[in-house]
Each structure stands twice: as structure tokens, then as C-alpha cells.
């Protein structure tokens, strides 16, 4: 979609409400655009004429670049944050059009869909989860986890379990949400970063994200984990966590497959017994999932 077309479609009045059953999006306006890296852009969206969406951390929306198409993108804001954010990597026609959109442009939103990280906002201190939470993200994988980490850090400040955020990226410039990482660190989370390719100015760690596990300092036997990143990275990280003594049921992974509808009709997002738009994207890395992820497809 050319930006000219997007501009020409900018309405002054209000578009009709959508209907999920008809795969009709609810029209949102881009109110802020944040360039995270050279190919990752965050869009902050507001509905034109609909109540703000309520969702849970880890769920996704179908985002329409009008006239180009629709793709599944996880929310990268926390439900309590008051904004609806999506962080999008420019990898195809639709994601490119979304990344190119400007403040004021219209974007279609359908959702929220799918399962979540099971991060509950406890109303009383006694209900806070006392377990450590280990969040491991690779590259853009931090986006679907950003809201969860925010909620976990808040819970930790009120007496909930400790939060460990381990982030791997290809190179320093590909690390997203630097300000959030600093903020989480300042508020008590243990944040560790590592890159595959060091640049001269990088004085941090260099190596695979799993190397951050060893000295992170969590108690694997009384903790849970949330992983999001390339599937191979999640597999290796999950295995390493199990080796350290973590219960596989306590390890959640966020999976990705082709999605065309988000509502369980199109059949594209099948992974064995799962329809990932319905049963995922967040699933426990236990038993069947660990097998499915190593199933040969060639």
C-alpha cells in the first residue's frame, strides 16, 4: 500500500463498527509510530468509534493494512498500560505496509484472539504468584512478552516472584525496547542481554541466549518460564530449562504459523492437534508440543 493511498483514506468522520463474524475489522487510527530497529516498528493504535479493546498478555490481533491484506500480530502493550501497541517486523507485503504507515493513518484490527501467558493481575497481595518467572526472548520475540514482563515487574514490586528477563539478538542494534529493559532493571528485574554478533561499541555479553541461563540466579525448581523467539531457540532454551530442573508444564512457548482468519475457520495455523489461533499461540512446552517442534516436515 502506498502511503498516498493511506492518506487518501484518512476519514474525518467515523467508520461503522466491524463484526467479527464477517471478518470485518474495526478501524483504528495510528496515534504514534516508534521505529524500534531498522526493520521493527511499533504502532500505537486507537479505535475511531469503538471502546478500547480488552485483552490478555500474549494474545494477538489480525491487523489489516487496507488494500494489502491482513496478518496476525501479538499485542506488545500490557492490558493495564492503557494503549494498544503492536510491534511489527517488516518481512512481507502486509507487514511492510503496516511498518510504513504514518501517524493518522487507518489500520484495521480484529481480535483479541488466542491464548495468553497466564499472567494474572492479582487484586490482593496474597494472590501474587510467588514463583520466579524467567522470560527468554529472541529478537522480535520480546514484543509478545513486553506486556507480560510489565505486569510481572509490577507484581514483583508488590511482593510477587522475581522476574528474570533474558534477551538474545542478532546484533546490538536489533535489541528492542531498550528503555523498557532499563526501566524493568531499575524496578528490580534481572535483565541480561546477549548478542550473536558484537559490534565495537558493544560491551555486553556475546553468545547464545541459553548461556544467560547458567548464572541468572533463579530457582529452576520453583519457577515458570515464558519463551518467545525463533522456534529452534525456544526448543533449545526449553530443553536447557528442563535440564536445570524446571517442570515442562511450567514452560510456555509462543508459536507461529500461517494465519488467515484468526477465528478457527481457515485451517492454515494447524500444528498437529492444535489450531494455533484458538489453542495457541501460547502453549505449554510439555509432552506433545516438544515432539511436534522436532517433527520433520521435509
Amino acid at each position, binding site marked *: 500500500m502506498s502511503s498516498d493511498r493511506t492518506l487518501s483514506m484518512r476519514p474525518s468522520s467515523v467508520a461503522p463498527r466491524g463484526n467479527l463474524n464477517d471478518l470485518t475489522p474495526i478501524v483504528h487510527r495510528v496515534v504514534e509510530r516508534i521505529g524500534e530497529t531498522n526493520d521493527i516498528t511499533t504502532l500505537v493504535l486507537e479505535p475511531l468509534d469503538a471502546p478500547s479493546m480488552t485483552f490478555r498478555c500474549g494474545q494477538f490481533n489480525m491487523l489489516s493494512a487496507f488494500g494489502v491484506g491482513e496478518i496476525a500480530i501479538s499485542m506488545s502493550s500490557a492490558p493495564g498500560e492503557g494503549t494498544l501497541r503492536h510491534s511489527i517486523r517488516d518481512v512481507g507485503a502486509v507487514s511492510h505496509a503496516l511498518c510504513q504507515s504514518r501517524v493518522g493513518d487507518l489500520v484495521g484490527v480484529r481480535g483479541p484472539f488466542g491464548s495468553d501467558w497466564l499472567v494474572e493481575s492479582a487484586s490482593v497481595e496474597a494472590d501474587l504468584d510467588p514463583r520466579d518467572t524467567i522470560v527468554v526472548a529472541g529478537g522480535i520475540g520480546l514484543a509478545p512478552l513486553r506486556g507480560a514482563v510489565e505486569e510481572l515487574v509490577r507484581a514483583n514490586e508488590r511482593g510477587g516472584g522475581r522476574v528474570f528477563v533474558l534477551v538474545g539478538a*542478532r546484533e546490538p542494534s536489533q535489541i528492542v525496547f531498550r528503555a523498557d529493559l532499563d526501566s524493568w532493571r531499575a524496578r528490580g528485574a534481572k535483565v541480561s542481554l546477549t548478542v550473536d554478533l*558484537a559490534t565495537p561499541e558493544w560491551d555486553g555479553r556475546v553468545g547464545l541466549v541459553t548461556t544467560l541461563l547458567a548464572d541468572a540466579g533463579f530457582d529452576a525448581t520453583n519457577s515458570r518460564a515464558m519463551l518467545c*523467539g525463533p522456534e529452534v531457540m525456544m526448543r533449545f532454551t526449553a530443553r536447557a530449562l528442563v535440564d536445570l530442573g524446571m517442570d515442562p508444564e511450567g514452560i510456555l512457548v509462543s508459536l507461529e504459523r500461517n494465519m488467515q482468519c484468526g477465528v478457527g475457520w481457515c485451517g492454515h495455523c494447524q500444528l498437529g492437534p492444535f489450531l494455533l489461533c484458538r489453542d495457541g499461540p501460547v502453549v505449554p512446552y510439555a509432552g506433545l508440543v516438544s515432539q511436534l517442534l522436532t517433527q520433520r516436515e521435509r
Partner: protein
Amino acid sequence: MSKAMRDLVEVHPFMTSMNEESIELVSGCARNAVFAPGSLLCAEGGDADTFYLLRRGQVSISVHIPGRGSVVIETVGAGDVVGWSWLVPPYRWTFDARAMDDVGCIAIDGACLRVKALTDPSLGFALLSKVSVTLLERLQATRMRLLDLYGDHRVQ
């Protein structure tokens, strides 16, 4: 060898599951060492005469490339080991290892350890087994990084 040194060696993760005798023998070749930020634990091309068990701090493994400076290939930290060139001829360092912050470690005399390993095959086997585990972990991590997982793999 002081009792203190033996205790330090015993609790290092590299020594996990080694028997009393082996711990004793390794400790006999060990000394305490500290490195200030920026100083070299070993330098490419130098004699590989030491095996380091890291206790605190981070160490970068790097190589100097003209025009690019010192390129860090990997970083290792507390609980890791640095250096296995002491184990195989010609006993020469392949990379630079540099302290990134205050580094505390146990420095083990490579020649001393080689002699003991040769005369006590059970120590030799235990050492090689432990070094193999470390090598395997590093090799697997390197292979994973070769996949360039986070890279852009678009077909077009």
C-alpha cells in the same frame, strides 16, 4: 597447596562430580588470580600454559582483525572455563581472552596438570570428560549461532 585453594577448586562447577583425589591433584597446580578490566588472560599466539576456572566477572574471547579492531566472538563468565589450548600441542593460544570487568579466577598451571594427567589416567580421563562437556556446549552454541536464527531469511 592451601586448604583454602582446595576449597575454591572443589566448589567450581567445572569440578562437579570429580573425585577427592582428582580435586586434590588439580588444586596442587592451582593458584588464585585476578585481572583488572581490559587486561588479558591470554593472548593469541602466546604459550598456552594456563587453564582458568572463572569465579567472578566476564571474559571476552576475541580476535584482532585489522580495520575492525578486537572482534568479540563470545563472552564467558563465572562458572565457565577459559582455555583448552594447554591440553593439546602445540600449546599455543588461538584467541585473546580479556577481562571485561574485575575478574577473579583460579589459574591452573597447564604443564603441571598435563604431567599429572599422564601419570594418573583416571585424572586424565576425568579432565578430558569435563573439558569435552564444555567443548560440546560451546560447539553446539556456535552451531546455533551459525544458523543466524534472528536473521532475515526471506526467500526473495
